[in-house]
Protein backbone atom coordinates (compact mmCIF):
# COMPACT_ATOMS: atom_id res chain seq x y z
CA UNK A 1 0.00 0.00 0.00
CA UNK A 2 1.23 3.43 -0.77
CA UNK A 3 0.00 5.60 1.98
CA UNK A 4 0.31 9.04 0.51
CA UNK A 5 -2.45 11.45 -0.12
CA UNK A 6 -0.74 11.93 -3.44
CA UNK A 7 -1.97 8.49 -4.43
CA UNK A 8 -5.22 10.08 -5.37
CA UNK A 9 -5.35 10.76 -9.06
CA UNK A 10 -4.44 14.24 -10.08
CA UNK A 11 -8.00 15.32 -10.43
CA UNK A 12 -9.17 17.57 -13.17
CA UNK A 13 -8.36 21.12 -12.25
CA UNK A 14 -9.78 23.82 -14.44
CA UNK A 15 -7.14 26.09 -15.90
CA UNK A 16 -6.85 29.51 -14.39
CA UNK A 17 -9.14 31.98 -16.04
CA UNK A 18 -6.88 33.95 -18.29
CA UNK A 19 -8.05 36.32 -20.90
CA UNK A 20 -9.65 34.43 -23.75
CA UNK A 21 -9.01 37.27 -26.12
CA UNK A 22 -5.27 36.97 -26.65
CA UNK A 23 -4.59 36.86 -30.39
CA UNK A 24 -3.24 33.29 -30.50
CA UNK A 25 -6.29 32.10 -28.60
CA UNK A 26 -8.62 33.75 -31.05
CA UNK A 27 -6.70 31.98 -33.79
CA UNK A 28 -6.91 28.60 -32.05
CA UNK A 29 -10.59 29.08 -31.35
CA UNK A 30 -11.15 29.86 -35.01
CA UNK A 31 -9.32 26.66 -35.96
CA UNK A 32 -11.36 24.55 -33.53
CA UNK A 33 -14.57 26.20 -34.64
CA UNK A 34 -13.56 25.35 -38.20
CA UNK A 35 -12.96 21.69 -37.32
CA UNK A 36 -16.24 21.59 -35.45
CA UNK A 37 -18.10 23.12 -38.38
CA UNK A 38 -16.51 20.63 -40.77
CA UNK A 39 -17.57 17.79 -38.48
CA UNK A 40 -21.12 19.09 -38.39
CA UNK A 41 -21.32 19.66 -42.14
CA UNK A 42 -19.40 16.76 -43.61
CA UNK A 43 -20.19 13.92 -41.22
CA UNK A 44 -23.49 12.09 -40.98
CA UNK A 45 -25.83 13.29 -38.27
CA UNK A 46 -29.20 12.42 -39.76
CA UNK A 47 -29.67 9.70 -37.12
CA UNK A 48 -29.74 12.23 -34.32
CA UNK A 49 -33.46 13.13 -34.21
CA UNK A 50 -34.45 9.46 -34.20
CA UNK A 51 -32.39 8.71 -31.09
CA UNK A 52 -32.89 12.02 -29.31
CA UNK A 53 -35.38 10.77 -26.73
CA UNK A 54 -33.43 7.64 -25.93
CA UNK A 55 -30.27 9.71 -25.60
CA UNK A 56 -31.86 12.02 -23.07
CA UNK A 57 -33.15 9.02 -21.10
CA UNK A 58 -29.63 7.57 -21.22
CA UNK A 59 -28.04 10.76 -19.93
CA UNK A 60 -30.60 10.81 -17.13
CA UNK A 61 -29.71 7.20 -16.25
CA UNK A 62 -26.00 8.13 -16.20
CA UNK A 63 -26.62 11.08 -13.90
CA UNK A 64 -28.85 9.12 -11.54
CA UNK A 65 -26.22 6.39 -11.29
CA UNK A 66 -23.49 8.97 -10.76
CA UNK A 67 -25.16 10.87 -7.95
CA UNK A 68 -26.70 7.95 -6.09
CA UNK A 69 -23.49 5.91 -6.12
CA UNK A 70 -21.38 8.92 -5.12
CA UNK A 71 -23.77 9.77 -2.28
CA UNK A 72 -24.03 6.27 -0.84
CA UNK A 73 -20.38 5.60 -1.58
CA UNK A 74 -19.45 8.64 0.47
CA UNK A 75 -21.66 7.50 3.35
CA UNK A 76 -19.81 4.19 3.29
CA UNK A 77 -16.44 5.90 2.98
CA UNK A 78 -16.77 7.66 6.34
CA UNK A 79 -16.85 4.47 8.46
CA UNK A 80 -14.21 2.93 6.17
CA UNK A 81 -11.85 5.82 6.80
CA UNK A 82 -12.63 5.94 10.51
CA UNK A 83 -12.12 2.20 10.97
CA UNK A 84 -8.72 2.45 9.35
CA UNK A 85 -7.66 5.27 11.68
CA UNK A 86 -9.02 4.25 15.08
CA UNK A 87 -10.91 0.98 14.68
CA UNK A 88 -9.99 -2.10 16.65
CA UNK A 89 -7.46 -4.34 14.90
CA UNK A 90 -9.82 -6.75 13.06
CA UNK A 91 -12.00 -3.89 11.86
CA UNK A 92 -8.94 -1.97 10.75
CA UNK A 93 -7.69 -4.95 8.75
CA UNK A 94 -11.09 -5.50 7.25
CA UNK A 95 -11.47 -1.90 6.10
CA UNK A 96 -7.91 -1.80 4.86
CA UNK A 97 -8.29 -5.10 3.03
CA UNK A 98 -11.51 -3.96 1.41
CA UNK A 99 -9.93 -0.75 0.12
CA UNK A 100 -6.85 -2.61 -1.14
CA UNK A 101 -8.87 -5.23 -3.00
CA UNK A 102 -11.26 -2.79 -4.63
CA UNK A 103 -8.49 -0.39 -5.56
CA UNK A 104 -6.21 -3.18 -6.71
CA UNK A 105 -8.51 -4.77 -9.30
CA UNK A 106 -10.20 -3.30 -12.37
CA UNK A 107 -13.75 -2.04 -11.92
CA UNK A 108 -14.81 -3.86 -15.08
CA UNK A 109 -13.79 -7.18 -13.53
CA UNK A 110 -15.63 -6.38 -10.28
CA UNK A 111 -18.72 -5.51 -12.26
CA UNK A 112 -18.68 -8.76 -14.20
CA UNK A 113 -17.93 -10.74 -11.06
CA UNK A 114 -20.99 -9.26 -9.39
CA UNK A 115 -23.35 -9.53 -12.35
CA UNK A 116 -22.34 -12.75 -14.08
CA UNK A 117 -20.74 -14.48 -11.10
CA UNK A 118 -22.73 -13.59 -8.03
CA UNK A 119 -25.92 -12.84 -9.98
CA UNK A 120 -26.14 -16.29 -11.50
CA UNK A 121 -25.25 -17.84 -8.17
CA UNK A 122 -28.29 -16.18 -6.61
CA UNK A 123 -30.52 -17.87 -9.14
CA UNK A 124 -29.54 -21.31 -7.89
CA UNK A 125 -31.25 -20.80 -4.55
CA UNK A 126 -35.03 -21.20 -4.70
CA UNK A 127 -35.31 -19.16 -1.46
CA UNK A 128 -33.84 -16.15 -3.26
CA UNK A 129 -35.85 -16.74 -6.41
CA UNK A 130 -39.05 -16.75 -4.43
CA UNK A 131 -38.19 -13.82 -2.20
CA UNK A 132 -39.47 -10.27 -2.69
CA UNK A 133 -35.93 -9.28 -3.70
CA UNK A 134 -35.91 -11.37 -6.85
CA UNK A 135 -37.67 -8.88 -9.16
CA UNK A 136 -34.85 -6.45 -8.30
CA UNK A 137 -32.05 -9.01 -8.39
CA UNK A 138 -33.20 -10.00 -11.87
CA UNK A 139 -32.40 -6.58 -13.19
CA UNK A 140 -28.98 -5.29 -14.07
CA UNK A 141 -28.87 -1.93 -12.35
CA UNK A 142 -28.56 -3.17 -8.74
CA UNK A 143 -25.28 -4.81 -9.72
CA UNK A 144 -24.05 -1.74 -11.56
CA UNK A 145 -25.05 0.42 -8.62
CA UNK A 146 -23.32 -1.84 -6.10
CA UNK A 147 -20.07 -2.08 -8.06
CA UNK A 148 -19.90 1.67 -8.65
CA UNK A 149 -20.79 2.47 -5.06
CA UNK A 150 -18.19 0.10 -3.61
CA UNK A 151 -15.57 1.52 -5.93
CA UNK A 152 -16.37 5.09 -4.90
CA UNK A 153 -16.40 4.08 -1.24
CA UNK A 154 -12.98 2.43 -1.47
CA UNK A 155 -11.27 5.37 -3.19
CA UNK A 156 -12.99 7.96 -1.03
CA UNK A 157 -12.40 5.78 2.05
CA UNK A 158 -8.69 6.18 1.43
CA UNK A 159 -9.21 9.95 1.33
CA UNK A 160 -11.27 9.88 4.52
CA UNK A 161 -8.54 7.91 6.25
CA UNK A 162 -6.12 10.72 5.47
CA UNK A 163 -8.71 13.32 6.44
CA UNK A 164 -9.45 11.74 9.83
CA UNK A 165 -5.77 11.29 10.55
CA UNK A 166 -5.06 14.84 9.49
CA UNK A 167 -7.38 16.70 11.85
CA UNK A 168 -4.99 18.57 14.15
CA UNK A 169 -4.49 16.93 17.54
CA UNK A 170 -4.97 20.25 19.27
CA UNK A 171 -8.57 20.58 18.14
CA UNK A 172 -9.43 17.18 19.56
CA UNK A 173 -7.59 17.93 22.77
CA UNK A 174 -9.44 21.23 23.08
CA UNK A 175 -12.73 19.36 22.70
CA UNK A 176 -11.72 17.01 25.45
CA UNK A 177 -10.70 19.92 27.64
CA UNK A 178 -14.22 21.28 27.20
CA UNK A 179 -15.42 18.06 28.75
CA UNK A 180 -16.95 16.60 25.59
CA UNK A 181 -17.59 12.90 25.61
CA UNK A 182 -15.97 10.74 22.94
CA UNK A 183 -19.10 10.60 20.88
CA UNK A 184 -19.91 14.29 21.13
CA UNK A 185 -16.33 15.09 20.20
CA UNK A 186 -16.63 12.85 17.16
CA UNK A 187 -19.95 14.29 16.12
CA UNK A 188 -19.14 17.94 16.73
CA UNK A 189 -15.44 18.23 15.90
CA UNK A 190 -13.74 15.23 14.36
CA UNK A 191 -16.30 14.23 11.71
CA UNK A 192 -17.17 17.72 10.47
CA UNK A 193 -13.51 18.71 10.29
CA UNK A 194 -12.57 15.51 8.44
CA UNK A 195 -15.42 15.93 5.95
CA UNK A 196 -14.44 19.52 5.43
CA UNK A 197 -10.87 18.43 4.71
CA UNK A 198 -12.04 15.80 2.23
CA UNK A 199 -14.35 18.11 0.30
CA UNK A 200 -11.71 19.42 -2.13
CA UNK A 201 -11.10 15.86 -3.37
CA UNK A 202 -14.80 15.22 -3.94
CA UNK A 203 -14.71 17.23 -7.13
CA UNK A 204 -12.05 15.04 -8.71
CA UNK A 205 -13.50 11.81 -7.35
CA UNK A 206 -16.93 12.64 -8.74
CA UNK A 207 -15.49 13.34 -12.17
CA UNK A 208 -13.66 10.00 -12.00
CA UNK A 209 -16.92 8.35 -11.00
CA UNK A 210 -18.70 9.91 -13.98
CA UNK A 211 -15.99 8.46 -16.19
CA UNK A 212 -16.54 5.01 -14.70
CA UNK A 213 -20.29 4.93 -15.27
CA UNK A 214 -20.20 3.82 -18.93
CA UNK A 215 -18.84 0.45 -17.80
CA UNK A 216 -22.33 -0.51 -16.65
CA UNK A 217 -23.38 -0.66 -20.29
CA UNK A 218 -21.48 -3.96 -20.50
CA UNK A 219 -24.03 -5.53 -18.16
CA UNK A 220 -27.07 -4.31 -20.14
CA UNK A 221 -27.83 -1.14 -18.18
CA UNK A 222 -29.00 1.39 -20.75
CA UNK A 223 -27.00 4.54 -20.01
CA UNK A 224 -25.66 7.22 -22.35
CA UNK A 225 -22.92 4.93 -23.57
CA UNK A 226 -25.34 2.09 -24.29
CA UNK A 227 -27.59 4.34 -26.35
CA UNK A 228 -24.63 5.48 -28.43
CA UNK A 229 -23.54 1.85 -28.87
CA UNK A 230 -27.00 1.14 -30.19
CA UNK A 231 -26.62 3.99 -32.68
CA UNK A 232 -23.26 2.60 -33.77
CA UNK A 233 -24.73 -0.82 -34.34
CA UNK A 234 -27.80 0.43 -36.16
CA UNK A 235 -26.03 2.87 -38.45
CA UNK A 236 -22.60 1.22 -38.82
CA UNK A 237 -21.03 4.64 -38.28
CA UNK A 238 -17.72 4.44 -36.43
CA UNK A 239 -16.81 7.98 -35.51
CA UNK A 240 -19.86 10.24 -35.41
CA UNK A 241 -21.67 8.57 -32.48
CA UNK A 242 -18.44 8.24 -30.51
CA UNK A 243 -17.54 11.88 -31.08
CA UNK A 244 -20.97 12.93 -29.87
CA UNK A 245 -20.53 10.66 -26.86
CA UNK A 246 -17.19 12.28 -26.05
CA UNK A 247 -18.80 15.70 -26.38
CA UNK A 248 -21.64 14.72 -24.03
CA UNK A 249 -19.20 13.54 -21.35
CA UNK A 250 -17.10 16.65 -21.87
CA UNK A 251 -20.12 18.84 -21.22
CA UNK A 252 -21.20 16.77 -18.20
CA UNK A 253 -17.70 17.04 -16.73
CA UNK A 254 -17.69 20.76 -17.39
CA UNK A 255 -21.02 21.20 -15.61
CA UNK A 256 -19.84 19.08 -12.67
CA UNK A 257 -16.61 21.05 -12.31
CA UNK A 258 -18.42 24.37 -12.56
CA UNK A 259 -21.03 23.21 -10.05
CA UNK A 260 -18.39 22.16 -7.55
CA UNK A 261 -16.52 25.42 -8.00
CA UNK A 262 -19.73 27.30 -7.29
CA UNK A 263 -20.31 25.24 -4.13
CA UNK A 264 -16.72 25.64 -2.98
CA UNK A 265 -16.99 29.39 -3.27
CA UNK A 266 -20.11 29.36 -1.15
CA UNK A 267 -18.67 27.20 1.63
CA UNK A 268 -16.27 29.35 3.60
CA UNK A 269 -13.06 27.51 4.32
CA UNK A 270 -9.74 28.57 5.60
CA UNK A 271 -7.00 26.70 3.72
CA UNK A 272 -7.32 23.27 5.28
Amino acid at each position, binding site marked *: *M*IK*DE*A*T*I*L*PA*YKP*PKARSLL*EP*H*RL*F*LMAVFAGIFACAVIYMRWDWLPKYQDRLIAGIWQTLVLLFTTAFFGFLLAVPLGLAQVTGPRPLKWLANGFC*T*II*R*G*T*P*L*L*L*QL*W*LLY*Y*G*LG*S*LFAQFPEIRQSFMWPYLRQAWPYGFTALMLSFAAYEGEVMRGAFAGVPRGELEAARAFGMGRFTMFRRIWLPRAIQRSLPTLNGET*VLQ*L*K*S*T*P*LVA*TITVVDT*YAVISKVRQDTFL*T*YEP*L*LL*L*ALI*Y*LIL*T*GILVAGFRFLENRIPSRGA
Partner: protein
Amino acid sequence: MDLSLLALSPPGWGGVLLAGLFSSLQLAVGGYLLGLVIGIGGASGKLYGGPIVRDLLEVYTTLVRAIPELVLILLLYYAGTDLVNQLMHLLGLPSMDISGLAAGIFVIGVVQGAYSTEVLRGAIKAIPAGEIEAARAYGMSPLLTLRRVTLPAMLPYAVPGLSNLWLIATKDTALLAVVGFSELTLVTRQAAGSTKHYMTFFLAAGALYLAVTLVSNVIIGMIEKRARRGMVREA
Protein backbone atom coordinates in the same frame (compact mmCIF):
# COMPACT_ATOMS: atom_id res chain seq x y z
CA MET B 1 -15.49 -24.45 -6.82
CA ASP B 2 -13.60 -26.57 -9.30
CA LEU B 3 -9.94 -25.65 -9.04
CA SER B 4 -8.83 -28.14 -11.68
CA LEU B 5 -10.26 -25.66 -14.18
CA LEU B 6 -7.35 -23.41 -13.31
CA ALA B 7 -4.68 -26.03 -14.08
CA LEU B 8 -1.90 -24.63 -16.21
CA SER B 9 -2.21 -27.09 -19.08
CA PRO B 10 -5.40 -27.94 -20.98
CA PRO B 11 -8.11 -28.85 -20.10
CA GLY B 12 -7.33 -26.32 -17.36
CA TRP B 13 -7.52 -22.67 -18.40
CA GLY B 14 -4.68 -21.45 -16.16
CA GLY B 15 -2.26 -21.18 -19.05
CA VAL B 16 -4.70 -19.01 -21.00
CA LEU B 17 -5.15 -16.73 -18.00
CA LEU B 18 -1.40 -16.35 -17.56
CA ALA B 19 -0.98 -15.57 -21.25
CA GLY B 20 -3.71 -12.94 -20.80
CA LEU B 21 -1.90 -11.54 -17.80
CA PHE B 22 1.27 -11.33 -19.89
CA SER B 23 -0.59 -9.36 -22.60
CA SER B 24 -2.02 -7.07 -19.95
CA LEU B 25 1.43 -6.42 -18.53
CA GLN B 26 2.86 -5.79 -22.00
CA LEU B 27 0.11 -3.27 -22.61
CA ALA B 28 0.58 -1.65 -19.22
CA VAL B 29 4.37 -1.38 -19.51
CA GLY B 30 4.27 -0.17 -23.10
CA GLY B 31 1.44 2.26 -22.47
CA TYR B 32 3.02 3.54 -19.28
CA LEU B 33 6.38 4.20 -20.93
CA LEU B 34 4.77 5.85 -23.94
CA GLY B 35 2.75 7.93 -21.47
CA LEU B 36 5.99 8.97 -19.73
CA VAL B 37 7.53 10.06 -23.02
CA ILE B 38 4.42 12.08 -23.84
CA GLY B 39 4.40 13.37 -20.27
CA ILE B 40 7.98 14.63 -20.37
CA GLY B 41 7.32 16.34 -23.67
CA GLY B 42 3.96 17.65 -22.48
CA ALA B 43 5.29 18.96 -19.18
CA SER B 44 8.20 20.71 -20.86
CA GLY B 45 5.82 22.15 -23.43
CA LYS B 46 3.39 23.37 -20.80
CA LEU B 47 6.13 25.00 -18.76
CA TYR B 48 8.50 26.33 -21.39
CA GLY B 49 6.57 26.21 -24.67
CA GLY B 50 5.06 29.12 -26.57
CA PRO B 51 1.49 30.20 -25.96
CA ILE B 52 0.03 28.06 -28.74
CA VAL B 53 1.84 24.92 -27.60
CA ARG B 54 0.68 25.53 -24.06
CA ASP B 55 -2.93 25.98 -25.04
CA LEU B 56 -2.91 22.93 -27.28
CA LEU B 57 -1.45 20.83 -24.47
CA GLU B 58 -4.08 22.21 -22.13
CA VAL B 59 -6.75 21.10 -24.59
CA TYR B 60 -5.17 17.64 -24.77
CA THR B 61 -4.93 17.10 -21.03
CA THR B 62 -8.39 18.55 -20.43
CA LEU B 63 -10.00 16.37 -23.06
CA VAL B 64 -8.35 13.17 -21.92
CA ARG B 65 -9.17 13.81 -18.29
CA ALA B 66 -12.78 14.76 -18.94
CA ILE B 67 -13.78 11.94 -21.30
CA PRO B 68 -14.21 8.37 -20.00
CA GLU B 69 -11.28 6.09 -20.77
CA LEU B 70 -13.66 3.59 -22.31
CA VAL B 71 -14.83 6.14 -24.89
CA LEU B 72 -11.27 7.27 -25.62
CA ILE B 73 -10.20 3.69 -26.09
CA LEU B 74 -12.99 3.01 -28.57
CA LEU B 75 -12.24 6.21 -30.47
CA LEU B 76 -8.48 5.78 -30.56
CA TYR B 77 -8.51 2.04 -31.19
CA TYR B 78 -10.33 2.49 -34.49
CA ALA B 79 -9.34 6.05 -35.34
CA GLY B 80 -5.66 5.54 -34.48
CA THR B 81 -5.21 2.87 -37.14
CA ASP B 82 -7.25 4.83 -39.64
CA LEU B 83 -5.28 8.04 -39.08
CA VAL B 84 -1.90 6.38 -39.42
CA ASN B 85 -2.97 4.73 -42.65
CA GLN B 86 -4.42 7.91 -44.08
CA LEU B 87 -1.22 9.71 -43.16
CA MET B 88 0.80 7.02 -44.90
CA HIS B 89 -1.51 7.36 -47.87
CA LEU B 90 -0.94 11.11 -47.99
CA LEU B 91 2.81 10.56 -47.91
CA GLY B 92 2.42 8.10 -50.75
CA LEU B 93 3.44 5.10 -48.66
CA PRO B 94 1.64 1.77 -48.53
CA SER B 95 -0.73 1.35 -45.62
CA MET B 96 0.71 -0.18 -42.51
CA ASP B 97 -0.34 -3.26 -40.69
CA ILE B 98 -0.80 -2.16 -37.09
CA SER B 99 -0.96 -4.97 -34.62
CA GLY B 100 -3.59 -5.01 -31.91
CA LEU B 101 -0.84 -4.73 -29.33
CA ALA B 102 0.62 -1.57 -30.89
CA ALA B 103 -2.84 -0.02 -31.11
CA GLY B 104 -3.51 -0.96 -27.49
CA ILE B 105 -0.22 0.51 -26.30
CA PHE B 106 -0.94 3.66 -28.27
CA VAL B 107 -4.35 4.01 -26.66
CA ILE B 108 -3.15 3.46 -23.10
CA GLY B 109 -0.15 5.71 -23.79
CA VAL B 110 -2.25 8.64 -24.98
CA VAL B 111 -4.48 8.41 -21.91
CA GLN B 112 -1.53 8.03 -19.54
CA GLY B 113 0.33 10.83 -21.28
CA ALA B 114 -2.21 13.41 -20.17
CA TYR B 115 -1.94 12.40 -16.53
CA SER B 116 1.86 12.06 -16.74
CA THR B 117 2.03 15.58 -18.14
CA GLU B 118 0.24 16.93 -15.09
CA VAL B 119 2.25 14.88 -12.60
CA LEU B 120 5.57 15.85 -14.15
CA ARG B 121 4.61 19.48 -14.55
CA GLY B 122 3.74 19.62 -10.87
CA ALA B 123 7.01 17.92 -9.97
CA ILE B 124 9.11 20.23 -12.13
CA LYS B 125 7.39 23.24 -10.62
CA ALA B 126 8.31 21.93 -7.18
CA ILE B 127 12.02 22.19 -7.96
CA PRO B 128 13.53 25.31 -6.40
CA ALA B 129 13.91 27.80 -9.24
CA GLY B 130 17.47 28.57 -8.15
CA GLU B 131 18.69 25.12 -9.15
CA ILE B 132 17.54 25.55 -12.73
CA GLU B 133 18.83 29.12 -12.87
CA ALA B 134 22.17 27.92 -11.62
CA ALA B 135 22.30 25.35 -14.40
CA ARG B 136 21.55 28.07 -16.93
CA ALA B 137 24.18 30.29 -15.39
CA TYR B 138 26.69 27.50 -15.97
CA GLY B 139 25.80 27.77 -19.63
CA MET B 140 24.05 24.40 -19.87
CA SER B 141 21.87 23.96 -22.92
CA PRO B 142 18.15 23.39 -22.21
CA LEU B 143 18.48 19.70 -23.07
CA LEU B 144 21.47 19.27 -20.80
CA THR B 145 19.65 21.13 -18.04
CA LEU B 146 16.71 18.80 -18.46
CA ARG B 147 18.90 15.72 -18.30
CA ARG B 148 21.31 16.76 -15.57
CA VAL B 149 19.19 18.93 -13.31
CA THR B 150 15.46 19.05 -13.96
CA LEU B 151 14.72 15.35 -14.37
CA PRO B 152 16.83 14.10 -11.43
CA ALA B 153 15.70 16.90 -9.13
CA MET B 154 12.00 16.46 -9.82
CA LEU B 155 12.08 12.70 -9.34
CA PRO B 156 11.26 12.63 -5.62
CA TYR B 157 8.26 14.87 -6.23
CA ALA B 158 7.09 12.83 -9.19
CA VAL B 159 7.43 9.32 -7.77
CA PRO B 160 4.14 9.15 -5.81
CA GLY B 161 2.10 10.44 -8.74
CA LEU B 162 3.94 8.30 -11.27
CA SER B 163 3.61 5.13 -9.22
CA ASN B 164 -0.10 5.79 -8.92
CA LEU B 165 -0.25 6.15 -12.69
CA TRP B 166 1.40 2.77 -13.07
CA LEU B 167 -1.30 1.19 -10.92
CA ILE B 168 -3.94 2.90 -13.02
CA ALA B 169 -2.25 1.69 -16.21
CA THR B 170 -2.45 -1.93 -15.06
CA LYS B 171 -6.16 -1.56 -14.37
CA ASP B 172 -6.97 0.46 -17.49
CA THR B 173 -5.73 -2.39 -19.68
CA ALA B 174 -8.89 -4.24 -18.65
CA LEU B 175 -10.91 -1.75 -20.68
CA LEU B 176 -9.40 -3.14 -23.88
CA ALA B 177 -11.56 -6.20 -23.24
CA VAL B 178 -14.41 -4.13 -24.64
CA VAL B 179 -12.73 -3.85 -28.06
CA GLY B 180 -11.89 -7.56 -28.01
CA PHE B 181 -8.18 -7.41 -27.22
CA SER B 182 -7.14 -10.70 -25.62
CA GLU B 183 -5.89 -9.39 -22.30
CA LEU B 184 -6.56 -10.87 -18.88
CA THR B 185 -10.13 -9.64 -18.39
CA LEU B 186 -11.31 -10.76 -21.82
CA VAL B 187 -9.72 -14.21 -21.71
CA THR B 188 -11.21 -14.59 -18.25
CA ARG B 189 -14.64 -13.82 -19.61
CA GLN B 190 -14.10 -16.26 -22.47
CA ALA B 191 -12.95 -18.99 -20.11
CA ALA B 192 -15.86 -18.30 -17.79
CA GLY B 193 -18.32 -18.31 -20.66
CA SER B 194 -16.97 -21.54 -22.13
CA THR B 195 -17.01 -23.42 -18.85
CA LYS B 196 -19.90 -21.54 -17.16
CA HIS B 197 -17.81 -21.22 -14.02
CA TYR B 198 -18.00 -17.46 -13.72
CA MET B 199 -17.09 -17.13 -10.04
CA THR B 200 -14.00 -19.32 -10.25
CA PHE B 201 -12.47 -17.45 -13.16
CA PHE B 202 -13.37 -13.92 -12.12
CA LEU B 203 -11.99 -14.55 -8.64
CA ALA B 204 -8.82 -16.03 -10.13
CA ALA B 205 -8.35 -13.02 -12.41
CA GLY B 206 -9.02 -10.71 -9.49
CA ALA B 207 -6.30 -12.47 -7.52
CA LEU B 208 -3.87 -12.01 -10.43
CA TYR B 209 -4.62 -8.28 -10.71
CA LEU B 210 -4.32 -7.90 -6.97
CA ALA B 211 -0.98 -9.70 -7.02
CA VAL B 212 0.27 -7.27 -9.66
CA THR B 213 -0.84 -4.35 -7.51
CA LEU B 214 0.71 -5.72 -4.33
CA VAL B 215 4.03 -6.59 -5.98
CA SER B 216 4.03 -3.14 -7.59
CA ASN B 217 3.44 -1.57 -4.21
CA VAL B 218 6.45 -3.30 -2.72
CA ILE B 219 8.66 -2.17 -5.59
CA ILE B 220 7.21 1.34 -5.45
CA GLY B 221 8.00 1.46 -1.75
CA MET B 222 11.63 0.66 -2.48
CA ILE B 223 11.82 3.22 -5.27
CA GLU B 224 10.27 5.89 -3.09
CA LYS B 225 12.76 5.22 -0.35
CA ARG B 226 15.60 5.52 -2.84
CA ALA B 227 14.20 8.63 -4.49
CA ARG B 228 13.88 10.36 -1.14
CA ARG B 229 17.54 9.83 -0.25
CA GLY B 230 19.03 12.98 1.14
CA MET B 231 15.74 14.78 1.39
CA VAL B 232 14.48 16.29 4.58
CA ARG B 233 12.11 13.82 6.11
CA GLU B 234 8.57 15.11 6.15
CA ALA B 235 6.99 15.35 9.52
